[in-house]
């Protein structure tokens, strides 16, 4: 079995801080005050997306109209990554490019839902009423904006990618497994160039509802991810990250700029009980070996009670020189959280802030992952 070095040659990032690799690398070096909106979705704080000039990555208005915000955000960030890798105009490369997207989906039409739920209470035949209203009120195109695999589909359409795409679902761990699988396929020679990442729109009450049903949201004001004892929970953020991965030799042969080498990615599923997340993450990190004395650790921790403290403990034991929670910069972006943390680590290495970085992410309810990046 061949094992090839896997490098990162394209980074696309967009968040509440703005867009681009340089801006996010600067934020890592000198963290700005977080951009948090505590009013719009009160009592739930969110990191709102800094508005994008969509035309720059999605030139056709008709394409923009057929997507919901999470898809536009993801298509935009994917375009940034392709531009950064120098592949946007390379039709041959785009016909071979393989895509893995970590996605949620299902952005609801909140007004339609609310009106139907109100009407159903007084309806003689709630089922018939629901059918009638759905037939008349649902927008046909909304379905396509909701389907999980249509972020990948839209990336293909907008950026002209005719290689295959796969969509992983399953909250934070989908992002871990997307990066892990992309890395494994390139290392083993099953793919040559991959675009991998995810996007999350936090500014939607339907997702807040799902997370709040489980009691996973922080209420009130912002507090750092590792200092939420007064009110543990997720502060979600609208953000996206995409990476272009390829074999080191392939990158050198085409003269691409190598930002960092993705040395290893691990994922596991602990049976959650006190201590299991710390043990799982420590196990994954131990596989990466002792690092450079200037090692940077970036945690994609959600802020959920218990597991976040365990993630912090595992990282503190890892001997990293510096620990940053990506949630403190851009909020928690579920499926996109781990890709964002990996993108941040690569950006830090590319900017010369460190030569060695580890990334961890424990999902708010299941799944643990870690990655190791080094200067190429």
């Amino acid at each position, binding site marked *: 079995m061949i094992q090839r070095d896997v490098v990162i040659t394209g980074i696309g990032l967009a968040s509440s801080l703005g867009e681009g690799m340089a801006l996010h690398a600067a934020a890592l070096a000198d963290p700005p005050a977080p951009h948090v909106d505590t009013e719009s979705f009160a009592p739930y704080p969110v990191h709102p997306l800094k508005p994008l000039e969509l035309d720059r990555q999605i030139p056709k208005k008709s394409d923009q109209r057929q997507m919901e915000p999470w898809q536009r955000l993801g298509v935009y960030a994917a375009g940034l990554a392709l531009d950064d890798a120098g592949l946007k105009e390379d039709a041959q490369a785009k016909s071979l490019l393989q*895509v893995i997207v970590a996605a949620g*989906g299902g952005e609801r039409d*909140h007004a339609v*839902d*609310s009106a139907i*739920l*109100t009407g*159903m*209470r007084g309806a003689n*035949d*709630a*089922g*018939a009423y*629901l*059918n*009638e209203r*759905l*037939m008349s009120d649902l927008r*046909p195109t909304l*379905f*396509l904006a909701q*389907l*999980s*695999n*249509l972020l*990948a*589909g839209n990336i*293909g*359409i907008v*950026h*002209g990618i005719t290689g*295959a*795409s*796969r*969509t*992983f*679902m*399953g*909250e934070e*761990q989908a992002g*871990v*497994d997307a990066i*892990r699988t992309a890395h*494994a396929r390139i290392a*083993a020679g*099953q793919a040559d160039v991959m675009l991998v990442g995810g996007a999350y729109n936090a500014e939607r*009450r*339907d997702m807040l509802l*799902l997370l*709040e*049903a*489980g*009691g996973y949201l922080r*209420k009130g004001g912002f507090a750092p991810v590792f200092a939420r004892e007064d009110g543990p929970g997720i502060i979600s953020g609208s953000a996206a990250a995409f990476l272009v991965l390829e074999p080191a030799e392939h990158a050198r042969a085409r003269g691409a700029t190598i930002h960092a080498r993705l040395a290893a990615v691990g*994922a*596991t*599923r602990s049976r959650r009980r006190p201590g299991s997340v710390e043990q799982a993450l420590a196990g994954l990190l131990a596989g990466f070996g002792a690092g450079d004395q200037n090692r940077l650790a970036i945690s994609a921790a959600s802020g959920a009670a218990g597991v976040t403290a365990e993630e912090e403990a595992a990282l503190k034991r890892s001997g990293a020189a510096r620990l940053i929670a990506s949630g403190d910069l851009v909020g928690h972006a579920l499926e996109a959280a781990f890709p964002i943390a990996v993108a941040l680590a690569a950006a830090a290495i590319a900017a010369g802030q460190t030569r060695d970085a580890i990334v961890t992410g424990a*999902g708010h*309810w*299941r799944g643990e992952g870690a990655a190791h990046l080094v200067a190429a």
Partner: protein
Amino acid sequence: MSTQHRDAKGRPIVAVTGLGIVTSLGQGKQANWDGLTAGRSGIHRITRFPIEGLRTTIAGTVDFLFDGPVSAPELSEKLATLAAEEAIGQSGLGQPGDFPGELFMAVPPVEMEWRQKQELAQAISGDVDYDGLLATAAGHRHKPFHELFLFGAVADHIAERFGTKGSPISLSTACSSGATAIQMGVEAIRRGETAAALCIGTDGSVSAESLVRFSLLSALSTQNDPPEAAAKPFSKNRDGFVMGEGAGALVLEDYDHALARGATILGIVAGCGERGDGFHRTRSSPDGKPAILAMQDALADAGLNPGDVDYVNAHGTSTPENDKMEAMSCAAVFGERMATLPISSNKSMLGHTLTAAGAVEAVISFLTIANGRIPPTINYRNPDPAIPLDVVPNTARDATVRTVLSNSFGFGGQNTCLVLTAGPDAA
């Protein structure tokens, strides 16, 4: 291990040692095979929810597993569990609750359903809005709703139940998802990452809203009477697909690993091909290029030629566009031989099991190989002269089938093709 078997490209060979299936025709391989070869349809009038006001009132729902109302993730999990139990049982691999391999699962996207939202809405006085729902949810009396509607939960529960190893994958490539789950298992075994994989496609998501969504895209047949005649792939009067439910499960295993433990080899997943289509969100490229390339990639991956294929298990949805595009693409791949190469659509009887279809149809393809009998395309009364094909019309046919090409095409430009063959012993 004495000898290491490798495929033409020097990779581990991926054997199939267990198969499981549940559809509207019943639970298990026997019930499904009996129904499919008898040309029986599982499509019927919907009774799970009111159909008043709907344009399409039929589906191949699986109604024999739950008495009361059931959510899509609950039904999808149950279907997957039954299919996986059958597949793992047949393989004899591992111990109960300790499957020594990874899990790759195609699952339907889910979201909080009307029943749960209605329950939350009951606590609200005055007009309902999401702030009201959030305020109710904040009371944390509906905690199970969270896990029920997480995208990763069905696969997580299956991983827990069967004791699969590693981080379970929940994936979607729309209507080719089941095939992608198999492809990911193949890739992991070829990488040497795992000696076995449990690959499942499951879908129990027929609801009023899912029907309406497809209706609004004009994707569904509206020829509701009689229900069993609505799905008519490749017929001139085809007018859309019929939604179906079900699950297919396959135990994939490194061939040498299976040999070493004396397992029965049911077949080989010899090749996989996939291509994206940047043309349109719901329509395929008019030239069929991505589908053609996906079929050719799958054959090349298997080290086989079009002439080696004995039978095509069609995507065959019964939509005007898919069947035309698929026929044209097959003609491009197989040339003049396509006029006599058998191609049939299981969806004529099962409906389109969406996320599950690729896995369900792979299981049926292996049964076709094992039994030497090709399930028909039923309801083929009015052939479409524009696409002359041997669709194995209406009646099952005995034939020696060693190599099957199974097609799956989906919204969002997803095209996945699998080459499935008999085990080497039958060579």
